[in-house]
């Protein structure tokens, strides 16, 4: 070895020592409110772990999903932590794309995670991602408007009753609309809602042997109801309203009722984010002709791709962001009403949370009793409440979602739309090789 080489080696050793211990994590996440808070509070994590640096990629949901799916499917390894839903976790775990979450710190207390949510991110009894927040669905309504109109929301409303209320509460001159629902096309937007509506009207996506069952009377009834209430009592521009847009509409007092995810409660009851914080009330999800079908369950989870080169550091971060301590930190910074809901038993047993969030017990019960694997009226070969747990559903759901949106704008009749959706779905399923 020449002297120069020795010197170079020594220099690189000297320079390399601190670099070896240090890792930089690239975290891909959605630009939803709770994740933005996580990004803000992550400086505390960096302070506690000086050897781990964080880099954030915050994107809109659709763009994010497209980026992380391309990345993980091609094993490009650009991200160390992914924000994914309980739709992706089991599918990706099956492909061995995700790192199993074992060896968590002792104080993590995985048994504190709500059972239904925990099962949603597990495969064969092993966790493949950790839940950041979880949700079921419920009906939000404006107590003041109901009182003014002399109406009372029943304990367990039916869709017929909801339609009657919507008709009475709609006041277009004052830009108050009876019922807001998701209309923006997408498998995670309008189709999440429409799927639950179809279920409770007795329908489903696929029957035995993966036979597509869209062009059926059940779907027709559900869609007739959906287009009818949205056209007559919904806000204008319904086809561009997803969860976020409806949240903005309800929070600014434009909706009398809104049926959507339970996570909105924390925002609607927060006077800093909502102009109707003192006027909002809630009821369960309405039911149609078929009761006891699968119920809505969604969680946003943090997972680690198998292609990550810094799995240990990534695990440290994921455990931190989904820990009890993190929930308490958010409570201290932003108030208990703003903590990420729906993941931990301990959040709901906290007296502070119960005091700040009047909906806490209700949401806990909704999530605890959520049964995404419940049976539809007729037997079905798939699981999932507001989605179908197969990889092809992203594409199918979005395409059918567009067709459903076209019935809202009147570009297609319901019959024509169902026929088109049926044939498009059959095509895709055939192309994908079903029945498997």
């Amino acid at each position: 070895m020449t002297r120069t080489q020795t010197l170079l080696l020594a220099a690189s050793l000297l320079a390399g020592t601190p670099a070896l211990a240090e890792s930089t994590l690239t975290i891909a996440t959605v630009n939803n409110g709770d994740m933005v808070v996580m990004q803000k509070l992550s400086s505390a994590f960096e302070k506690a772990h000086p050897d781990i640096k964080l880099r954030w990629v915050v994107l809109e949901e659709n763009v994010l999903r497209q980026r992380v799916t391309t990345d993980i499917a091609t094993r490009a390894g650009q991200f160390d932590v992914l924000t994914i839903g309980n739709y992706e976790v089991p599918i990706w775990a099956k492909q061995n794309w995700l790192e199993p979450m074992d060896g968590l710190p002792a104080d993590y207390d995985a048994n504190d995670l709500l059972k239904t949510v925990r099962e949603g991110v597990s495969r064969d009894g092993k966790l493949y991602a950790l839940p950041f927040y979880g949700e079921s669905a419920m009906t939000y309504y404006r107590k003041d408007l109901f009182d003014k109109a002399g109406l009372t929301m029943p304990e367990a409303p039916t869709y017929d009753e909801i339609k009657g209320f919507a008709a009475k509460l709609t006041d277009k001159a004052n830009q108050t609309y009876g019922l807001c629902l998701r209309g923006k096309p997408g498998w995670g937007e309008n189709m999440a809602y429409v799927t639950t509506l179809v279920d409770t009207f007795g329908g489903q996506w696929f029957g035995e042997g993966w036979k597509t069952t869209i062009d059926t009377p059940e779907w027709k009834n559900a869609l007739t109801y959906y287009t009818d209430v949205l056209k007559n009592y919904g806000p204008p521009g319904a086809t561009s309203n997803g969860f976020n847009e409806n949240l903005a509409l309800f929070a600014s007092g434009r909706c009398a009722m809104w049926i959507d995810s339970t996570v909105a409660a924390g925002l609607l009851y927060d006077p800093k984010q909502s102009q109707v914080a003192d006027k909002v009330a809630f009821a369960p999800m309405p039911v149609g002709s078929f009761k006891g079908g699968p119920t809505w369950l969604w969680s946003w989870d943090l997972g680690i791709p198998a292609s990550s080169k810094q799995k240990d550091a990534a695990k440290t971060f994921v455990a931190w962001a989904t820990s009890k301590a993190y929930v308490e930190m958010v409570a201290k910074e932003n108030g208990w009403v703003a903590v990420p809901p729906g993941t931990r038993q301990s959040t709901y047993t906290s007296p502070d949370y119960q005091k700040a969030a009047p909906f806490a017990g209700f949401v806990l019960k909704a999530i605890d009793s959520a049964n995404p694997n419940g049976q539809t009226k007729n037997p079905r070969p798939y699981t999932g409440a507001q989605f179908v747990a197969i990889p092809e559903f992203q594409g199918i759901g979005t395409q059918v979602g567009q067709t459903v949106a076209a019935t809202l704008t009147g570009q297609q009749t319901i019959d024509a739309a169902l026929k088109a959706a049926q044939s498009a779905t059959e095509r895709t399923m055939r192309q994908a090789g079903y029945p498997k």
Partner: protein
Amino acid sequence: MSTLTTPAPAPAKGRRFNGLPFLGPSVTVLLIWMIVPLVMTVWFSLQRYNLLDPTVTGFAGIDNYEFLVTDPDFWASLTNTLLLVGSVLVITVVGGTLLAVLFDQPFPGRNVARLFAIAPFFVMPTVAALIWKNLMMHPIYGVFGAVARALGLPAIDWFAEYPLLSVILIVSWEWLPFALLILLTAVQSLDREQLEAARMDGAGALAQFFYIVLPHLSRAISVVVMIETIFLLTVFAEIYVTTAGGPGNATTNLAFLIYARALLQYDVGGASAGGVVAIVLANIVAFFLVRTIARRLEV
């Protein structure tokens, strides 16, 4: 080899010129840029290949192409592509010409006004689409809706009622300034004496415009049409942000259809078949349109 008697402008006089070292780099990188993805695309288009499901493999033959051309959305997307390109071209060329003539007239603050008028061209398509969707055309929060309500009219839900027209409007807004800029340059180089002479001969404003200004602009218009066509064939961000191709397939152009198949279903085989069709289409357009225009440009 040309001789000295050949009239100018003649190519490569005197010695034999070897252009390869100069042209080579550009052609090579573009060839690689085109051939590598092209070969991969053609190869994938003959395979069963879904990113989300590695168990789906094998030779697909022409299945992916058959699947594509039997897709009812495919033909709609071709129609939408042509409608979008055609309408935007007409709007920007006609509007650009009128604006160019207008901005050629002297008026106070003309230079500042021109700066404002060309501003949209510098705006990213994503931002343009977001502004139009949320701040202009939104039926509740948007300016258009507010104006309509102030006039006692119902607010128009643009993206639901006139989806393709809305996209055309946004894209035209982005490209009109470009047309204006190029056509204004051309108008300003117009021979004033010729116009003056025409006026002396008693030609009206319209006659002057059609017989002198328009013929003079034909070359500039060709430039506008050619550059815009290249970009308009692949319009994507504006559709992605505003309508995501809907409602139904009302605003799905070919680029968006490929996106929907490739990145929503992760069906690389099917998307590659779409890519190959797009390449063929691009070459057909290049053949007809660019050839006719290029002739006018004396290429």
